[in-house]
């Protein structure tokens, strides 16, 4: 017994180091291997509060650009409104196709990262505003990411610029499906993989979200095809997609609450049980 105590006492420094190393390695491995449930995230009141303060100052520097973007979006919406058959009827749909207005929550990015291979965005709304994990996040130009962690007032988004991100997407013209990933190289581009060779595609074709995704409604813009690579071993194309969004400059975002998602999930769970 005394020897054990002696050992612990003599090596206490090393043991403390190993303990701390163990804790930090567990955090590291966890953040890489699990899709969700990160222990440490910036969706908490301390870092969320700090980032909100920083953002309230930073916002002033981009006011002009943001105003221009808003005016542009307004003009587009007005164009839709005035081209309606019956102008007295307010259109039921918002800018995002297939989603009713009440199902959209507006929020603001208070921190954006794009340097590391696994990027996360922090926004200033959380469970109080009705956010849940796995909701899709978009803005007026296209998709941004998927909600990962939530606290009372803040939430973190897994950006599409994240090696873990996998989003179902399709080519608008031909309806061929693929998976949208990111190769951690350029913030302006994402990659669409597993597109069948049968698909007739050309440079400049638009890529939108697919119907298979339960997180995003169909037909939300992603980007245009910039390069086409063929894989000799498999019968698939790999496409380089130029994103509509400048992921390094994000302001207001919309969170999509999809009612169909829960229904579809429930249905699929029942189907699987029956098999």
């Amino acid at each position, binding site marked *: 017994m005394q020897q054990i105590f002696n050992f612990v006492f003599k090596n206490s*420094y090393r043991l*403390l*180091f190993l303990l*701390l*190393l163990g*804790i*930090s*390695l*567990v*955090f*590291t*491995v*966890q*953040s*890489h291997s699990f899709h969700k449930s*990160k222990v*440490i*995230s*910036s969706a*908490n009141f*301390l*870092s969320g509060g*700090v*980032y909100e303060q*920083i953002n309230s100052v930073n916002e002033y520097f981009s006011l002009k650009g943001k105003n221009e973007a808003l005016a542009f979006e307004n003009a587009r919406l007005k164009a839709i409104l005035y081209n309606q058959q019956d102008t007295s009827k307010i259109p039921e749909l918002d800018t995002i196709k297939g989603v009713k207005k009440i199902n959209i929550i507006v929020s603001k990015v208070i921190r954006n*990262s*794009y*340097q*590391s*291979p*696994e990027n*996360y965005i*922090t926004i200033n709304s959380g469970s109080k505003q009705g956010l849940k994990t796995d909701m899709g996040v978009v803005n007026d130009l296209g998709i941004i990411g998927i909600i990962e962690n939530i606290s009372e007032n803040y939430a*973190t988004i897994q950006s599409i610029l994240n*090696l873990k991100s996998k989003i179902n997407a399709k080519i608008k013209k031909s309806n061929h499906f693929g998976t949208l990933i990111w190769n*951690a*190289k350029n*913030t302006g581009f994402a990659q669409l993989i597993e597109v069948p060779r049968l698909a007739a595609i050309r440079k400049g074709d638009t890529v939108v979200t697919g119907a298979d995704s339960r997180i995003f409604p169909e037909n939300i813009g992603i980007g245009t095809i910039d390069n086409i690579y063929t894989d000799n071993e498999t019968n698939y194309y790999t496409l380089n997609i130029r994103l509509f969004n400048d992921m*390094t400059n994000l302001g207001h975002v919309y969170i999509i609450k999809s009612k169909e998602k829960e229904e579809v999930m429930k249905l699929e769970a029942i189907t699987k049980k029956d098999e």
Partner: protein
Amino acid sequence: MLSNIARFFLLLAAQILVFNNMSFFGYLNPYPYVLFILLFPVNGNRFSLLLASFALGIIMDIFCNSGGVHTTACIALAYLRPNFFKFSFGVSYEYQTIRINDKLTPERFSFILSTITVHHAILFILESFRINYIFETFFKIILSSIFTILLVILIIYLFKPNKR
């Protein structure tokens, strides 16, 4: 003691407010917050250094959303620090009065170079965590280390305490 606590918070604030937003070439960030571990007194309490490094790393991880990579790199650096002293200043470093916070000599430069490179190597290897990005990771380690070393030397010269 007081200066160490002040340094801890000042470096952390500077890192989060300024240096994390630099993104040189779109993806390079310097990490001069490690200066806290480098400037900790040579004969100071090693337990408190280890625990302070852990706190430093975990706060960085919370703000960077990076899991535990900063924490691991920081405590590894704090644990290995005596070896770097031995490497740069000779075996009997404990009996000299080492001041990192002073004019740049070859010994001091080798100390800064080796510690920061090792810290960044651990940081970026754990961050990418994938073997197929090994070249990008290496590239990032080298460029980011150069960036941090330049900034660290600048900071040391700017805040060099007056000798009088």
